[in-house]
């Protein structure tokens, strides 16, 4: 017997959808009729040949022929396009902050390439991953060749608000988190809303600027 999952996929497994894995609620009353899904061929004939070569909306890699899945990131081209990313975070090294904090035994990096992170999740963690622990890798991972040793493994988190902007919460970091020139650390309990251009300061010299695109 085939059932239909809440997203409309036909599934032979009555408990979890064969396609998207979603839990299928126990059927009340007679089973729903099977919805016939458009065959892949049908979906493809709708798209013009030019559309086949459209870049992947997630990773921008070129689409290979009429493949359903992106070769680079596995994105499903038949799935609805993801929400366009409207905010980004840019991590850089700030000498003024370093001088103000004057941490012992840490030198200011000679060169630090800015790192850009598109903000596209509802929860974006900031931290510094340890090798071999990529299971808990934060979305904004400041581990690398040049590292700020003052950043905790999971340091802070950006939480998306209803209007699409982000609010900041400390995750019990060792050295705390501040915003702009306010010396008071942000709270771990209540989130601090961020405006376009706000600078998050963590560690000895790291500044993360959030920007609306």
């Amino acid at each position, binding site marked *: 017997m085939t059932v239909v999952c809440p997203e409309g996929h036909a599934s032979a497994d009555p408990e*979890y959808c064969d396609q*998207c*894995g*979603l839990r299928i609620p126990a059927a009340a009353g007679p089973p729903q009729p099977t919805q016939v899904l458009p065959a892949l061929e049908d979906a493809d004939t709708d798209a013009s040949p030019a559309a086949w070569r459209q870049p992947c909306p997630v990773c921008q890699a070129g689409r290979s022929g009429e493949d359903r899945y992106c070769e680079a990131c596995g994105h499903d081209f038949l799935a609805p396009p993801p929400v366009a990313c409207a905010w980004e975070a840019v991590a850089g090294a700030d000498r003024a902050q370093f001088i103000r904090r004057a941490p012992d035994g840490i030198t200011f990096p000679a060169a630090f390439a800015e790192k850009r992170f598109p903000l596209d999740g509802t929860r974006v963690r900031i931290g510094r991953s340890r090798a071999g622990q990529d299971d808990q890798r934060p979305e904004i991972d400041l581990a690398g060749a040049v590292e700020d040793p003052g950043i905790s493994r999971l340091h802070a988190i950006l939480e998306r608000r209803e209007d699409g902007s982000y609010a900041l919460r400390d995750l019990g970091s060792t050295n705390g988190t501040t915003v702009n020139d306010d010396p008071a650390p942000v709270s771990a309990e209540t989130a601090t809303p961020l405006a376009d251009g706000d600078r998050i300061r963590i560690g000895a010299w790291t500044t993360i600027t959030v920007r609306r695109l």
Partner: protein
Amino acid sequence: MSSFTAEVYQNEYLPAGGSEVNAIVTVTSGAGGEPAKRPDAAEILIVDTSGSMEVPRGKIKAAREAIAVAIDCVRDGVAFGLIAGTDKAREVYPSGGAMAIADDHTRQEAKRVAEKLRAQGGTAMGSWLTLAGALFDTAPGRVCHAILLTDGENLHETPEQLDAVLAACEGRFQCDCRGVGADWQVSELKRIASALLGTVDIIPDPTGMAADFRSMMETAMGKATQNVSLRVWTPQDARTGLVRQVAPTIEDLTDRGTQVDERVTDYPTGTWGRESRDYHLCVHVPARSVGEEMLAARVSLVENNEVLSRGLIRAIWTDDEQLSTHISREVAHYTGQAELAQCIQEGLWARKAGDQATATFKLGRAVRLASESGNDGTLRLLQTVVDIDDPETGTVRLRREVADVDEMALDSRSTKTVRVGPAP
């Protein structure tokens, strides 16, 4: 058919926006009954007879005795053979391009041949494995197992040649590797054992060889099922981040999968006797809204496309942080064991490179992880390389004089894990 069970340990609750699902799957074979002792096994003993096996003089003698012990362990009806390896492989028993069937007569014959083994020549392990593969092919349908014993480096072959042989042998037979003395390369045997789903260990002293061979043979003779795969189904848009055997040893299978269809991948697990293994899976799924539940992965044990057992890994999104921030004990334990193995590797590497600070830090961390998780075996091995001041903080001092065999024992056994202890 053997009986298999799969149990899943996980915290299925994810925070809003969370997409990473971790679980430990415990697979037990032969639970609730002795697996049928099937005689249709095949066993090949591969012994290094390169010139170095004569030095010290006891080595080839101990190898001969160990082979005799191993031959005595071969059950009636099992196909078996003996290969002597130098810069080429020679089938010394039964010879003639096939395998012998074990009975009192063939076992005696094979032991007489083993007594005459002389050491002379070079080392090309790939050629030994190729011959073993060809012999196993003459006995189709059997659970195939080999033991490779060496004392030196693979000098007469390039790493690429060995890799090509391993690729050709993968999935055809299992191979346990043993290094005797201190002149062999741990990384080389690890490569072979890892590709052929076997174990690797050091036999520091030739006199220990016979006992080790007996235990390997007893394990091999208990194997009843081969070519069992761990089959993982994941939903649309999900990505399998990690498939790792975490007990009894760590073996990363993430890149070893064979895609069955667009949502199903099979990972090799080799042969099974009556035993239990743990696997750590990490699946990234598209985040759903709070209150929704989905299947993140369906894990099954499959033999010849027949599903032996099955477990479900689920994801439920919640805004209750009490639920979502909890890390499953099993996942936390094995994440620690994997870090332990990695710290030992990095520590030993730094020690060889002369980087005392990194070596002290990494091995100190390893001591702390081993002590916290009750991995006493690994802790004892670490003690041969460092002096431990305080296991709780991981304060250690590197030892100045470390025997090669001790360092190699730690290196080869660093992936041995302990099971998660009972709940506090």
